């Protein structure tokens, strides 16, 4: 897996989102750091003290989603073989390269977690900006995956 975005700046990345998502991220980032904003976004379930009338109980507890999302995001950006099938799409060159990356990651991880891509794309944007603060190689160094495809991409490091 080999991709580098031109910019990991949140202000650039969030341009791939819709207005309502940008407004929410702006509000969260005005109060919290990126890690906390990710946690808050994934745990949002509508207004407090309001009982819903109908629906699907599958979105009840989001805490497991946070860990699972982070695990899957790390796998994707650090070259785990689980996501091999999605990588060729990401490698395509395009004027909207970061949009393609964000959409690819959102749909791939969403499919894995049983979440619609529309629900997690803002969290993918936040996570990419976090990754950008330390660089992808440094970010992935501690994840136990190898990024270089010539070294059996995605295999576990010997410890």
């Amino acid at each position, binding site marked *: 897996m080999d991709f580098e975005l031109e910019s990991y700046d949140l202000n650039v990345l969030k341009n791939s989102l819709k207005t309502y998502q940008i407004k929410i991220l702006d509000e969260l980032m005005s109060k919290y750091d990126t890690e906390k904003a990710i946690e808050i*976004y994934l745990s949002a379930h509508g207004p407090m003290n309001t009982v819903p009338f109908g629906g*699907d109980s599958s979105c009840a507890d989001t805490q497991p989603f946070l860990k699972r999302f982070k695990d899957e995001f790390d796998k994707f950006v650090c070259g785990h073989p689980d996501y091999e099938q999605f990588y060729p799409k990401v490698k395509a060159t395009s004027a909207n390269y970061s949009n393609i990356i964000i959409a690819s990651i959102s749909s791939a991880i969403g499919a894995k977690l049983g979440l619609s891509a529309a629900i997690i794309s803002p969290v993918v944007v936040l996570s990419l900006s976090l990754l950008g603060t330390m660089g992808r190689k440094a970010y992935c160094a501690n994840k136990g995956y190898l990024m270089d495809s010539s070294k059996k991409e995605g295999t576990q490091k010997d410890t």
Partner: protein
Amino acid sequence: MNVFTQMVLVIGRIETHSVQMLGTGFLVTNDGKIVTTRHVVGNNDKNLVILFPHIAKINDYQDTTDTSCKPIPVTIVEADPFRDLVILKGDINFTGDLPIISSFDKTIVGDDVGIFGFPHCVEGRRVLTFQKAEIGAKILLDCNSVKSKYAVINTQSRPGQSGSLIFHVKTNCIVGVLIGAFAPMEVGAIIAGINPRELHQTTHCISAEYIKDML
């Protein structure tokens, strides 16, 4: 009024030999975008459908023994977990005029609103029902530190009504989406599957202005 029979729809999920009805939604664009609440559809759109309208006129008798339906697959294209809203998209081409999407900003407390939804659809009853109520209050509700505009409408809601269309009688505009009822989160006694704390004449509806940014 008859336009609402074509634009207010049951949201459901296909199961082995049936459709589990989950709640209400309504068309917001002529090319098949539908708004409902996020909690109605949950986290994914696997086997998610809307049911094609079963009556043409609001004054028609609705046959409660007729369990046939025509499901149309839909996908989640936008989701706002803070306002509990999603936009679905189906292969639908609606040629009529849809009401304008407005906001509770255009209403005043005491104004009449109309509600179209499918109360009790989660229990297998498909009856498009019209209710009338007053706006009792305009409020800001918090979700994880993001505040949004809501109205309290003076009516009691039941399961299946989440996602119902709220329109402003004075202007004939869509002003809100029914979300649920106030009830403190501390769970008290549940009697026959009912939380007594939700049995009151007030219902929370999110302002429709948030739909516009999602389209």
